[in-house]
């Protein structure tokens, strides 16, 4: 009989990993909340630019914050998460199609989709991603004055093929919704995992709260998506977004990439 114990580091590692995974999810979720808030302001290009400027005013601390509060939590959560989805589990949503089981299964699908989506998202819209991949000719995110236009371009029409662009648009919607679901549902399960909600009744109540939160996130996320992917105008004059007065030269620069 193998004894279950909790005295050695090896025995505690598993617990620690799981709880770190959960914690990192919460940290990354907090970032996502902010990210969707900011991007929802994409409906108002100038406001959006202001928000981006606000974030970039954190330089030179920004990379540190990005690494510590976003990238590390995200990577830890994603890598261990992928491991969890495969750790000897057996999905049975079709046999036992209860709400909880459907959410459980969707949580994992959403997680996998998110890994792919976020990888693409960073690769194409983050300066490190582009630098890392060295992609030529891809619309670059331009934080200064052109945050809105460059984002629209990256989301809506990055490729020459119209089909590919439509695919990207839908990929963004799928990714956004996956993020919203994964985050809201993760908030619900985290409360059980950490022992905040200890009864079926409290889990249900907290479930309603998470559901409400999820709906807010869904509205924000979908708004953000629509702002860039549907109503977004890549050719909006910089004068309408600029906050620091840079002009046509930069505009040309952006156009030159097409």
């Amino acid at each position, binding site marked *: *009989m193998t004894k*279950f114990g909790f005295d050695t580091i090896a025995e505690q590692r598993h617990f620690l990993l799981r709880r770190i995974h959960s914690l990192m999810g919460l940290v990354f979720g907090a970032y996502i909340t902010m990210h969707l808030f900011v991007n929802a302001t994409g409906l108002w290009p100038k406001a959006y630019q202001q928000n981006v400027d606000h974030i970039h005013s954190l330089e030179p601390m920004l990379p540190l914050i990005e690494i510590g509060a976003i990238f590390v939590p995200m990577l830890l959560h994603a890598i261990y998460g992928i491991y969890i989805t495969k750790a*000897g*589990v057996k999905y049975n949503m079709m046999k036992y199609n209860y709400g*909880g*089981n459907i*959410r*459980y299964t969707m949580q994992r699908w959403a997680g996998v989709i998110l890994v792919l989506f976020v990888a693409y998202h960073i690769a194409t819209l983050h300066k490190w991603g582009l630098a890392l991949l060295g992609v030529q000719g891809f619309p670059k995110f331009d934080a200064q004055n052109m945050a809105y236009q460059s984002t629209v371009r990256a989301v809506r029409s990055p490729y020459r093929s119209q089909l590919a662009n439509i695919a990207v648009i839908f990929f963004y919607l799928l990714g956004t919704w996956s993020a919203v679901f994964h985050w809201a549902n993760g908030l619900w399960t985290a409360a*059980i*995992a950490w022992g905040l909600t200890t009864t079926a009744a409290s889990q249900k109540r907290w479930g309603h709260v998470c559901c409400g939160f999820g709906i807010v996130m869904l509205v924000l996320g979908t708004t953000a998506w629509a702002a860039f992917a549907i109503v977004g105008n890549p050719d909006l004059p910089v004068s309408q977004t600029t906050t620091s007065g840079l002009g046509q030269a930069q505009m040309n620069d952006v156009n030159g990439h097409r």
Partner: protein
Amino acid sequence: MTTADSTKTPPTSPLPPFPIVLRIKRQDRPDAAPYWQTFSVPYRPNMNVTSVLQQIQSNPVTANGEKTSPVNYDAACLEEVCGSCTMIINGKVQQACSVLIDPLRAKCGNAPPPPIIIEPMSKFPVIRDLIVDRTRMFENLKRIKGWLPIDGYYHRGPGPKVDPQTQDELYDMSRCMTCGCCLEACPQFTKANTFVGAQIFSQVKYFNLHPTGQADADERLEAIMGEGGITDCGNAQNCVKVCPKDIPLLDSIGWSGRAATIHSIKKFFSK
């Protein structure tokens, strides 16, 4: 006493006398390949799956008229308190004794009812036919010290007083018959991993809530804090849906999470 007469009272609503058709997944030995056999049993009112299996025992002939061996299955109490006859019936894990035939047929109206599909539990090794080896559940009870550590059996007066609310809570958990439904339905519980599942979380809570269980409470808790323990619960919550005894398993899981959190913090700072 003419017991036989009273069991054969005519049904209140006339149901078409279609025979009961069972499709059973059989397996001769643990290492043999499974195969399917179909049986057709004359309908009688008020039957359950167990009584159909009993009919097959006394006349082990398939629907095609081929002689075969009686289907082997575990059974004991036949009133859903022993947990023996757990199997997968029409895709869902349940006790054969409490699956009644009439309600299944009532849904079909006058059409011939579809065959009832019966399989052994899939998360435990098959011994033969519908018999599986659930030793893992009992072994896990040992690992969590599933007992109250009393001094001995000589008389020492009554046990500690328990308030009725706590008794209520304890009683609900104490009805677990180790049938394995919660584990069969749990996507996290598989032959390939060491996950202990809802059954065990509930038992840890059960013993830890009892005043006498306090002595071993930390050990019990730590037993579910490692790999295969409470952190591996994915909250699919099928367990509570399929539990035939309506044990508040979600409460036990939530309790385990909280206890583990508090215990880990305590351990980090004070040991």
